[in-house]
Each structure stands twice: as C-alpha cells, then as structure tokens.
C-alpha cells in the first residue's frame, strides 16, 4: 500500500497532474467563497471540462474543487456573514463575531488550519480503514437516519443563545418550512398554493443567504449614519499563534473524525457535520459559554468537521459505489464516464488511479492550507472597506447567489422574504441559525420517521430496539441536557 501511495505522490507532483490540482483547489476556494455557488455546483459545472481528460487528471481536478469549495465557504461566512456554502453556516456563528471584534485574520487562519486538519485526517481514514467504515455506514436504515436527524436537531438548544425556547420555536418554524413542497413519501403537494415554484420546497441557499446576509445588510443599513459606523474598521492582522493552534488540535482532530464518520453515511453531508461538530465542541469545551460570541473553537470545530466529510464521503463511493453526498454522486458519474466502476474491484483493477486520488487529496489539502494562509491578509482587506461600500457588495452577491442556484427570480424573492424574517428575528432576539439547521435536517427527519413507522407497521418500537438509533437518541438527550445545564449555570 505504501509503495502505491508513494507512486501516487510522485504522479501527483508530475507536470501532467499538479497544475490541474492547483487549478482545482484555487477554483474551488473561489467558488466556495462566492455565495450561492456550492461545492456540488462547482463540481457539476466543471465536470464537462473533464470529459476529454485522462482519468487521474480529471478526478484530481474535481476533488481539488471539492476540498477547496468546502473550505472557501468559510471565507465569506467569516467576513460578510454570508456562508458561501451551506457547510459554512455553522462557521458564521463564531467566525463573524470574531471578524466584528477585529480578529478576522485569526478566524480565517483557524479556518484554513482546521480545514486542513479535517481534510488530512479524513484522507488518512479513507486510505486506512475505508472498508470497515463503509460496512458500518451501510447498516443505516430509516430508524437510524431518523435518530441521526434528531441528534442533529438537538443542537438547536445549544445554538439558541440566551433563550432556548425562542431557538426551539425558530427550529419548529424551520421544520415547518421544510414541509413545503411535495410530500417526500406520497408526493402530495403541501402548502404550495398552486405555485409550481414551491413544488420542490424552498431551496436552502436563498433561505440561508436571506437569513444571514440580507438580514445583516438591513441591520447595517439602519446603523449606517451612526458615528461609530462612519469610522473605518481597522483589523488586527495577527493570525492564530502556534500555541493556540496546538491547543486547538484535539478539537480539530475529534471534529475531523466525527466529520469523516458522518461523511461516510450516505445522505449526510458537510452541512450536518459542521453543526454536529460545533455542538460537540461546545458541549465538551471549558469555554462552552463563550461559543457564539467569537470563540476560535467555534470556528475550528465546524471547519474541521465539514472538511472531514470530504474524505468520509469518498469511503462508500470508492469501496461500494454508493455516493456519500451530492458531490460524490457527481464524482460517481465522473468515474463512470472515465470507464471506471467504483466498488471493491476498483482497488485491485485500477489501484494506480485510486492511490493517485488519495495522494492528490493529501497534496490538495496542503495546497488549500497554503492558499488559505497566504490569502488571509488579502481577504481581510474586504472587511476593511467602509460599510457604505460593503453593504452594496453584500446585497449584489446575495441576489446573484440566490438567483444562480436555479436561475430563478422566485428564489430571489424567497431570499428577500427570509431577509425580512431574519431582520425581524434579530430585533426580537430570536436566533436564525436553528431555522437553517431545521431546513437542512427536516426532510431527513420527516421521511425517515414516516418510513420507519411504515416499516414497523405503525409501531414506534424502532426508537428503542435499534442499537445505533438508540445511541444517537441518547446522544441527543445528552446534548439537550448539557444545554439545559449550561443555561442554568
């Protein structure tokens, strides 16, 4: 295996492949940083360009885009409160607060390092124990997915700030939003009011951009003539220190492992992993109460978690031919187009390509760290612009981001609608992140709960008879209990 990996590394650094990896990673970072352009969209858009390429070159470029885009989403999340991708929604919670304190450079450097650790750990896991992980992930049925969704939703209590009740209400609102559109089991149209645009429900990107970016733009507009606002913000350019990085390593590694595990479960992606790892870091941290106010652990955990998914999602793809998330579903298409059949035989028949891919993931993560750290000061310049300039930029990018997902003006109106809702929610001290979490997890919770009830012929015994499900439900109870204790301490 080591010899194959060495050969893969040599191939990755060859002139025929390395430039494509560089293009992929940089392109991915740009795509991820632009609101509305997700890793999935980036890989899908660039897929046709790889049709004529040699297999390793094509896969290396697409994987470069994947890892770059997942990291890139954090840049706009930290600087503009506009998550470039849904995977960066959890990074906003502490990243933007750090930027507001003038510590954008620190937040961005932590994000780059955590993404690197997440990517490296998950790639090592992919190389070493992928068959074991894949067989475990395949044990997930509807009851387990439902329990995983409940565990994810239990995080709402810990990201609700001062009032868990208001956070839970926001979560309920998010879950109700997720029921709009065709019913996932019977395809019955719900709350669509005859609007064809609503048949697919609300797309996550316009909701995300509206609640975070546009709502913040409206709040800033209100304060635009305040004296304090007129003074240009000056940032500390100090990045995270080596001592701080070392102290963050345990959280990063734990989050990366959780991210890898979640990524290996088909259907659970980087967005879920980011929230789960954020919650776990908050639960286990001595500074749990500082989360949400600009805490570097709150940036490190979701970033390591969401990049941990990149390797994890490839586990079922390469070992079983089952994609772990939307991006790997497109990569599955890319593999088939290149004449490769994912599955156990891929490791024996096309070992050179597989290990070339592993090596390029390792090198790609190093490149991502390099570009991320080199770009920190450049990215910070964006926030140093006066608010009177930055608000129009945020508004323009928000509208383009909402439109570009489905090329739909309807999505733009959705974005504005949620911008107004987010603005009012900020006014009444109601957190908006539970809505995002609920919109992401709602369809997974509903469809799997109903499938499980149907599987058990109306009985709810799956809640206590399926071991994996019981573990997740116990974790959810633990998460709620620790949030309750924190709120009362």
């Amino acid at each position, binding site marked *: 295996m080591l010899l194959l990996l060495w050969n893969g590394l040599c191939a990755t650094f060859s002139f025929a492949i390395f430039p494509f990896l560089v293009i992929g990673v940089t392109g991915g970072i740009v795509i991820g940083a632009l609101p509305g352009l997700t890793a999935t969209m980036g890989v899908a858009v660039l897929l046709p360009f790889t049709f004529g390429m040699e297999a390793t070159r094509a896969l290396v470029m697409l994987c470069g885009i994947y890892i770059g885009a997942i990291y890139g989403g954090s840049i706009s999340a930290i600087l503009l409160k506009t998550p470039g991708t849904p995977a960066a929604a959890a990074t906003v919670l502490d990243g933007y607060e750090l930027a507001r304190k003038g510590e954008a450079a620190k937040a961005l450097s932590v994000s780059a390092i955590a993404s690197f650790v997440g990517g490296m750990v998950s790639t090592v896991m992919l190389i070493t124990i992928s068959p074991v992980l894949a067989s475990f992930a395949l044990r997930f049925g509807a009851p387990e997915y439902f329990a995983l969704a409940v565990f994810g939703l239990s995080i709402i209590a810990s990201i609700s700030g001062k009032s868990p009740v208001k956070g839970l209400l926001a979560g309920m609102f998010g*879950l109700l939003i997720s029921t709009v559109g065709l019913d996932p*089991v019977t395809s019955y149209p719900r709350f669509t009011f005859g609007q064809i645009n609503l048949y697919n429900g609300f797309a996550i990107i316009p909701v995300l951009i509206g609640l975070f970016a546009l709502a913040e733009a409206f709040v800033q507009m209100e304060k635009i003539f305040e004296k304090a606002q007129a003074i240009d913000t000056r940032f500390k350019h100090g990045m995270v220190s080596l001592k701080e990085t070392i102290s963050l390593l345990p959280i990063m590694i734990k989050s990366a492992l959780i991210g890898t595990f979640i990524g290996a479960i088909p259907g659970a992606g980087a967005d879920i992993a980011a929230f789960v790892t954020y919650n776990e870091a908050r639960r286990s941290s001595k500074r749990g109460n500082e989360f949400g106010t600009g805490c570097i652990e709150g940036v490190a955990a979701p970033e390591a978690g969401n990049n941990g998914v990149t390797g994890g999602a490839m586990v079922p793809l390469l070992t079983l031919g089952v994609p772990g998330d939307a991006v790997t579903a497109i990569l599955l298409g890319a593999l088939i187009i290149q004449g490769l059949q994912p599955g156990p035989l891929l490791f024996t028949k096309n070992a050179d390509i597989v290990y070339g891919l592993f090596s390029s993931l390792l090198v790609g993560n190093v490149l991502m760290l390099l570009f991320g750290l080199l770009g920190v000061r450049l990215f910070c310049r964006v926030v140093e612009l006066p608010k009177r300039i930055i608000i129009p930029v945020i508004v323009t990018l928000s509208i383009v981001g909402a439109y570009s997902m489905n090329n739909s003006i309807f999505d733009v109106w959705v974005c504005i609608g949620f911008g107004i809702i987010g603005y009012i929610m900020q006014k009444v001290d109601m957190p908006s992140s539970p809505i995002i979490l609920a919109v992401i997890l709602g369809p997974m919770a509903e469809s799997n709960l109903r499938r499980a009830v149907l599987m058990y012929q109306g009985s709810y015994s799956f809640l206590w008879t399926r071991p994996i499900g019981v573990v997740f439900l116990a974790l959810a109870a633990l998460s709620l209990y620790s949030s309750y204790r924190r709120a009362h301490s």
Partner: protein
Amino acid sequence: MKKANYCVAIVFILLSGFVFFQVSGFQQTLIEDDYVGAAFFPELLAWGTIVLAVLLGWLNFKNKFQEDSRSLSDLFPKEILTALEGLTVLCAYVLLLEPLGFILATIALNIALLLLFRVRSLITMAVFPVSISVIVYLVFCKVLVVPLPEGLFYF
C-alpha cells in the same frame, strides 16, 4: 421586550392555526394506514409550536427572561426607515432585473444604494457600481458559466 415576546408567541400560535387549517384540507392518500400521511408531520410540528409558544408566553409572564427594558419603539427606531428604503430599492431592482438585464439593473441598484447612504464622492459613484456589476457578471457568467438575466441588451 416583554410586549415583543408576547407578539412572538401570538404569531407562532397563529402560524400553527394556519397549518392546522391547511392540513385539514389535505386529501387522504394511499398511505394512510399507520397515520403517517402527508398531514402527519406538519400536524406534529404545529402541536409542538403551540406548546413552545404557550411556554414562551408563560415564561414571559413569569419574568423568567433576562431584564430587558427595551420598548417596541426602541426595537424599531426611526432609523428603520433607511432599512425600509433599502428594501424598496432592492424590490425595485428584482423587478427590473429581467427586463433590464443584470449589468444595467445592478449598476442602477448600486447607484441607488450609494445615494441612500449619502456617498458624495463622484468618483466612487461612477466607478464602483460599474466595476462591481461587470466583475460579478464576468465571474459568474463568463468564467463559471452560470447564466444571469440578460434583458433587452443581452447582458
């Protein structure tokens, strides 16, 4: 803030009422045996929402929230007008986006926002709206091949 909390509770109770009303009109589908039809999940959520809204109202009544003496006028001061004007500009922009095309409409949006924010520098007013519109258009439309509204002049 106390009044605002009551308003929040009432809004969510009304929302739940609306959900119940809508759900009552859902026709039964083939999967109705185990009570997990299309209405099952929204109804469950509506009940949960009512319970939480009543709890919010009760906690508010019992003064269980942190002291916050802000009144409704503090929450929505007169500066809110700037945000409302910004929202109006934004809505006008979305209406103009398809007829005018991305570049022209975005230039107009940025000029309107700069005027709203009382930016007086003519250079900023001339250079910024054009450059941001063209750069975003080139990145999305030409580099990433993501189509944007073309309008009358095809850009």
